[in-house]
């Protein structure tokens, strides 16, 4: 993939070349919010120019919307944001530039909503930028450098999902980049009912046991919140005798994640009834243990959560009790007022807003979209100046569903005052 990315003809485009360099730049995490805002504004302008150069569709769209690439401001993103529902099925096709590079992957959403999933193609160059940028963001939120080749990871998912689900892909690519071995704790059973992928998963006990017993450090455990909750509940409710048996066989509970160990959740509830995140964390910390990487002292297991969608090239990450969700420095997150769909100010804190994202690293399509989530923004001392708290999925307001008043006939008006009014 890296070879293909290196051979990308788009690297001859100054805009894409710059993106490629910026995606690797860890120094971005030390810049000021103002610096990064200006950088993102510049990238927006060069992005719009890039898309106008490479697609008649975008050229016309910008014209219709009155957006001039060379003079665009971040406020213009409101005009460009596409609701994710419009990307479902074949909906995304018209957004791709015609000369996008082949040989990449197509990711698809999980289908939790029961509607046509969103499928997004990523070219080799995009995949490389995505991997590096996400790995850098992960390390920032995790709090330290991950030594390449050290440690072990378990993902409570099946390997087949990595080409489909964003969260799985995000983890797989980042760990490949770091050369950290990843075990998949689930298998995908053959399709019978045609249900969504994540409902066809069965545990692979052997690989889970391998992870539990391993003494490698750090151990990183990735799962949907439901998976963490399930393991915590199962271990937590064991009788004393069974606990002893498990302890002898697997060395757990507790499941020791060792120095630098962490639990990383993502993917939402997937329709399962799971407790509040606080409860999941509290219960999991009774079953999982971790130690400070420097001192080796036991610490409450760090929890991170990934908010990634099929449509986003880079995710938003948080660390429980340390920071709320924070985007990659290059990703521009903006909120729309749910009453009016106007842009909310970056200083409108603690108010519900409709999440909207612009990711300049996407070059196959102009990635400006609203995934359909409500979040709040809170002030932050970190590089982004703001952090985000997930509130809920946006419920689709049917709103006006009443039957038509066919034939409402107001002949009487003709007679009011004896003349037409």
């Amino acid at each position, binding site marked *: 993939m890296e070879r293909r990315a290196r051979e990308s003809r788009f690297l001859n485009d100054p805009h894409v070349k710059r993106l490629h360099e910026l995606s690797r730049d860890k120094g971005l995490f030390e810049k000021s919010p103002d610096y990064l805002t200006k950088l993102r504004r510049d990238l927006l302008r060069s992005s719009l120019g890039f898309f106008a150069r490479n697609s008649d569709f975008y050229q016309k769209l910008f014209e219709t919307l009155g957006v001039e690439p060379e003079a665009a401001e971040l406020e213009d993103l409101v005009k460009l944001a596409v609701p994710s529902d419009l990307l479902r099925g074949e909906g995304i096709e018209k957004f791709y530039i015609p000369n996008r590079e082949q040989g990449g992957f197509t990711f698809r959403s999980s289908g939790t909503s029961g509607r046509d999933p969103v499928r997004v193609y990523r070219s080799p160059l995009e995949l490389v930028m995505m991997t590096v940028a996400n790995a850098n963001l992960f390390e920032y939120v995790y709090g330290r450098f991950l030594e390449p080749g050290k440690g072990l990871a378990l993902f409570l998912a099946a390997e087949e999902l990595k080409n489909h689900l964003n969260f799985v892909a995000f983890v797989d690519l980042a760990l490949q980049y770091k050369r950290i071995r990843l075990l998949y704790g689930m298998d995908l059973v053959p399709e019978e009912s045609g249900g969504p992928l994540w409902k066809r998963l069965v545990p692979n006990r052997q690989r889970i046991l391998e992870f539990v017993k391993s003494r490698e450090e750090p151990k990183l455990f990735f799962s949907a919140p439901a998976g963490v909750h399930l393991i915590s509940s199962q271990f937590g409710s064991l009788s004393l005798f069974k606990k002893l048996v498990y302890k002898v066989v697997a060395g757990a509970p507790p499941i020791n994640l060792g120095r630098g160990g962490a639990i990383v959740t993502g993917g939402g509830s997937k329709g399962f009834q799971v407790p509040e995140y606080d409860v999941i964390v509290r219960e999991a910390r009774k079953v999982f243990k971790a130690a400070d990487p420097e001192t080796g002292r036991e610490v409450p297991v760090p929890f991170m959560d990934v908010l990634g969608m099929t449509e986003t090239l880079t995710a938003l990450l948080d660390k429980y009790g340390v920071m709320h969700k924070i985007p990659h420095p290059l990703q521009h997150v903006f909120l729309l007022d749910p009453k009016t769909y106007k842009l909310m100010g970056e200083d409108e804190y603690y108010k519900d807003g409709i999440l909207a994202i612009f990711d300049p690293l996407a070059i196959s399509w102009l990635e400006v979209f609203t995934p359909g989530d409500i979040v709040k923004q809170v002030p932050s001392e970190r590089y982004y100046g703001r952090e985000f708290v997930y509130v809920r999925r946006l419920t689709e307001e049917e709103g006006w569903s009443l039957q038509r008043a066919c034939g*409402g006939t107001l002949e009487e008006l003709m007679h009011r005052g004896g003349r037409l009014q």
Partner: protein
Amino acid sequence: MILDTAPLHPDLGREDLELVVVDSVSVYEPKGEWLRNRLADAVELQQELANLPLSERLRAVGLLGEAWREKLESGKLEWVKEELAKATGYSPAIVDLEVEFVAEVLNPGNIAKALDTALVGGSRSLEEPVEVAAGERVRNLPAGPVLVIGSGNSIVPPLIPATLSLVIGNFTILRPSLANFRAVREVFSPLHSFPLDVSLRRALLVSYFAHESRNLRELLEKGPLGVVNYWGGEPGRTAVARMLAANPHRPRFVVNGPMTGFAIVDSSCATVEIAEKLAFEMVLYEQQLCSSPTQAAFVGSKGEALDFVEKLASSLEKVGKRYPVQLENLPYALFVMRRSLELAGAKVYASSDPSNPWTIAFSDGKSALGEVPPNALLPLHARRRFLEIVRVDSMREALNLVASLPRNPAYLGVDKVQTLAVAVDRGALEEILSNLHRIGVYRVVPLGESYLRTPVEPYDGLFLPAAFSYSVYVRG
């Protein structure tokens, strides 16, 4: 939950009612046996009604109008207004207008004029044979019993056919929708207490029937009905037609299907005044009337068209504010549709005020609305204060848009354009009139008057009084 759908008829006792459970709600309906008995007596009742002087029948309707006005003025109908505003989403200011219209619909003078126009031999032919040619006479008689399956979410629409049917002398069963049932029943409730001939008081049954109701099915499949007047679209229309096909009494099936309005403006008439009239038509009843313009053609240059769009936008801002709707947020689906229109090439002008959520989509040459993906399309009844204006070069192209509207995916379920509202020069109007056969509309009116009807107007190409009666020819 039991809904208050107690039917209205003087002979109906508690023991004659049946509680019908539909999903989680229960509604009251007259028992099948009671209905059969009433229908068995209907022919005799209609004879008595037909022998009553027309003036007596009109007086009854007039009294209903007066009673309504009195209640309105004494503030006794506040609950009706509140219920309607809540059920329909209309601005309270629109509901205020609506409840005032009720008394006007029940105006005996208007009804008499409608009968005079619609019936061969005029209204007098409802009382006696009237000479229509030397030695040739016509007497019009009630064709009922008449079942009116009324539409909608306001009071007025079901009142018109029910009132005409009643005055003609039919035993009339009015089935309003759940949304307006209580309001419609309130209109007719004084009928039983007026000093009227007993046959008049017994001539109307106002009753809700659930969609899956056994009683409704029996009525449609077996009831000795003369006319069924259905207001609405699919799937109800076909379901009713199927049931009626089995009815051995072969009732006449009169459908007032779902339709919409279309406006044509040419550059010579693109004034602020016309923009304000169009804005008012978009705001009135939130475009829920079959006559409300929901798409428009502008004949002229792009510059002229955009100038008119700006005028319309300002007018909507102004007019719409006078009729605020009670909406806290702009619906997400509206946001999705507006964005889809832009992606389909339209220029979208829109309000961000949830209490006045107007939208204008300007398309050049062809309808961008027709290219919006189905999952992003709000159905017509949910597109409120919404207008697509398509700029075209000629009247011919404008008329093509009118003719092709039923094939536009954005108008799924709409039969055709009912009302063409025009603001064009004399020559253009002539061109429209010479193409009526091609465009298939039922009405051509000045823009701003789509919602206005005179008593002499037919409904969707036919006169309701004629549909509710039959003519007996007498020679010699």
